[in-house]
């Protein structure tokens, strides 16, 4: 068995992994990137549409162009990487095992590990639809890969279930290919992806969007012949008599993404409700020296935010290796961050009291859209620590706040803080 040593191992070479590795390398630490695909770049490689990099580079790039900027840096800095190499196990002791066609099984001993494995598409939504299981059902990302990378079309006429970003982007892409997208069907009363995509991918191409509807039956035995869609009530129950048949030969699913954390779980790190690892303000998991960033931690809608988060993870890893590695630290004194009203999840999940004097970046998502809301942080003693007004919140947009809790006057003895997004009381505070 081949054995290597490296200060840091980065698992995954998407936008997250690349940026984190570059950050670490700039501090003169050894870093090794391991990627299971045959190229660096991750999911961005199949996103040939533009819309990447507005924040990071203040330019509108395509996915591959965005990735290339980081790949160039990796090469300039001579950061070593292994391609076609799948990590199959990581341990608490920070041993990383990967398989590779040329080298067999590889063991790498690291001081710190950065998890950047990205996410996968959910298939829920299709799986509970009654009917046959014919050919012609794909996730939107699968279809994207077929069309953009392999150069094949999965069908002629489409219905897309779910209004996630990938689904909407594929609706436009397939229309360009001369295919017919009959409808995008969304069970919620609102679109689940970004407004930008609703306008640029659906409305500009007259692709019908049917909200508060879902697919209730799949027709066809060999290949899909069509689907029945039905209106749903408040609790997503089917409204009798609202069924409509739509003829199509392909059903695409765009019902959301979920962090890819099997390795994390097997290593013994805790996961939190959003499917990502439980992390502190340093993006460190419950295992010392294992950090996470990008979609493996929380699903991001913008690549620029992934890059920023990854740089942060990189900086924290440098700090860890230079000042904490190998030292027996006292039992951590922590404060828990709890998602409250209309908050789906929040990162970090916990905060170390020793870092209360520093600015902490909170990221979270709401459960349902709302207007004129108040975002408030309150401790377990019901003291309100922080307040901010926001005109509009939607689940598709990740919210980000930088807060210095000490300056906000947090009671250092508190055990938890709860984040609520609530209808705004009449008193007006400054608009964002």
């Amino acid at each position, binding site marked *: 068995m081949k054995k290597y040593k490296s200060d840091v191992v980065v698992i995954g070479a998407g936008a997250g992994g690349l940026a984190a590795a570059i950050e670490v390398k700039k501090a003169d630490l050894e870093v090794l990137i391991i990627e*299971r695909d045959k190229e660096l770049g991750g999911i961005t490689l199949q996103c040939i549409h533009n819309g990447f990099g507005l924040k990071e580079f203040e330019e509108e790039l395509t996915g591959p162009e965005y990735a290339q900027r980081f790949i160039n840096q990796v090469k300039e800095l001579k950061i070593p990487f292994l391609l076609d190499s799948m990590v199959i196990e990581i341990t608490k002791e920070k041993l990383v095992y990967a398989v590779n066609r040329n080298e067999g099984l590889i063991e790498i001993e690291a001081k710190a590990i950065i998890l950047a494995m990205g996410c996968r598409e959910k298939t829920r939504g299709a799986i509970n639809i009654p009917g046959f299981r014919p*050919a012609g059902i794909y996730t939107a990302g699968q279809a994207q890969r077929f069309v953009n990378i392999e150069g094949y079309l999965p069908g002629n006429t489409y219905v897309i279930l779910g209004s996630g970003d990938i689904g909407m982007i594929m609706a436009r892409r397939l229309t360009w290919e001369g295919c017919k997208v009959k409808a995008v069907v969304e069970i919620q009363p609102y679109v689940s992806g970004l407004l930008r995509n609703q306008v640029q991918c659906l409305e500009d191409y007259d692709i019908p969007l049917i909200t508060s509807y879902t697919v209730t039956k799949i027709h066809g035995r060999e290949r899909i012949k069509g689907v029945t869609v039905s209106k749903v009530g408040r609790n997503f129950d089917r409204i009798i008599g609202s069924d409509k048949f739509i003829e199509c030969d392909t059903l695409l699913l765009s019902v959301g993404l979920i962090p890819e954390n099997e390795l994390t779980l097997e290593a013994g790190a805790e996961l939190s409700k959003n499917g990502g690892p439980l992390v502190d303000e340093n993006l460190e998991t419950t295992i010392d020296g294992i950090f996470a960033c990008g979609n493996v931690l929380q699903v991001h809608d913008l690549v620029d935010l992934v890059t920023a988060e990854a740089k942060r993870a990189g900086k924290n890893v440098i700090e860890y290796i230079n000042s904490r590695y190998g030292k027996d630290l006292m039992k951590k004194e922590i404060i828990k961050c709890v998602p409250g009203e209309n908050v789906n999840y929040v990162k970090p999940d916990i905060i170390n009291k020793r870092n209360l004097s520093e600015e902490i970046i909170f990221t979270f998502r709401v459960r349902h859209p709302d207007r004129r809301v108040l975002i408030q942080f309150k401790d377990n003693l019901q003291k309100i620590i922080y307040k901010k007004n926001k005109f509009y919140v939607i689940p598709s947009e990740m919210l980000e706040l930088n807060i210095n809790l000490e300056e906000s006057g947090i009671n250092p003895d508190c055990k938890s803080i709860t984040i609520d997004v609530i209808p705004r009381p009449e008193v007006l505070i400054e608009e964002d």
Partner: protein
Amino acid sequence: MIYDVIIIGGGVTGCCIARNLSKYDLKIALLEKEADIASGTTKANSGVVHAGFASPREYVKRDMCIEGNKLYTQAFEELNFSFQRIGSFVVALEDNQIVKLEEQRKQGTQDGIPGLEVILDKKKIKYMEPNITDDVVGVLHAPTAGIVSPYGMTYALAENAAMNGVKFFRNQKVRRINHQNYTFVIKTKDKEFKANNVINAAGVYGAKISKMVGLDYFKIMPRKGEYIIFDRNAMHLNKILFPTPTKVSKGILICPTVSGNTFVGPNAHNITDKKDISTTEAGLKEILESGRNLVPNLPVRASIRNFAGLRAVPDTYDFVIDNTDVYGFINVVGILSPGLSSCYAIAKRVIEFLELLGANMTVKEDYNPIRPKPERFKDFSKIELDIKIKEDPTWGRIICRCETIPEREIIDAIHSPVGATTLDGIKFRCRPGMGRCQGGFCRPRLIEILSRELNIPYEDVVKMGEETNFLVAKTKEIALQSVEGGNKE
């Protein structure tokens, strides 16, 4: 060429007969109408190897099941399929049901089923199966009951049969059978097969095949059963759980699978269309509601798939296993539940029939009953893995990430005897696409490998048979077609 025996139908019944006959010096062929074997009832059932006490004593299926269960031990050793004798509970929720359990225990024990025990100690029951409802008042424990992968075992049977000389022909739907001078001439769309003996193991189509030789003495009704499968991490069951049976059916059970998932089902609805394996909203609701009686907190949100299977229910409600009046024509149909449990006993019976019919039953010298265990990445230690990959790099290319399946296992599934030719064929043989992402990532890779290994274009790769193609065209083709005067070049 004239075969000694032709078997019609590549379900577990046909494949088990083929394998057990392959021991003898006979020329044997098996014809299957679908693109793959194990495509009918065998693909979609509960996968329970029943202990055998459930059917009333007057039915042949009871004897076959009790004997068949015992024969699993040897078959498992020889064929290396997934099988675990985890034991079953028949669950009583009311005191008056205990009588029924006692009666089943008594009769079962008399008929030679080992280890049957009625347990009334709630603590003990809960210890043995923590997920069971608090309302349980007693259970009948059958330690010899087990779970098996029905298609996995069928592939193993077919592979071993093929190793021992049985010829498999897929995509061969039998359309007509002529019977002249003691020879059967079997016609399919594009081929003709001749045989001295024919075994009808065509499942729900059994009556149709029987009629082809003029035998019209039973009817087969399809009866649908629907299922929901839950994610592996969502729940862990130790035992197969049945409700106390009513007159109509064994009821809806909750059961683990050999790959660690849990399922609930099946219900039972008579239908008329023998191709209707669609699931229904009402049916899925029904099984969940019923399942909750045994396990109140079913992990409904963790369901990963639903499917339905068709029981081939004969009008006698019992197996039709006959050496018929048409000399050389054997019916093995109406194999409803517990057909899977009974298959080895059924095959034994068929061999007796062939002896009576004067077939040459000398055992072949080179008969090899062992089907080697397929090599699995997951079974290797780290050091073994390292050696394997160095010997053969395809062990190091992971195709299915959810189930960690390397290219080698997929190539093996394609090139094994009676190997996979479709995507579903690969999926059911070695599980890529059965995991959490349900094929999201690996499907493009699988299409690439199938296309390469079978030397067919991408667009011709199918899910499960004719007309189930995945990809319809290359990009730009459709757009170009719609441009007037457009040219595909």
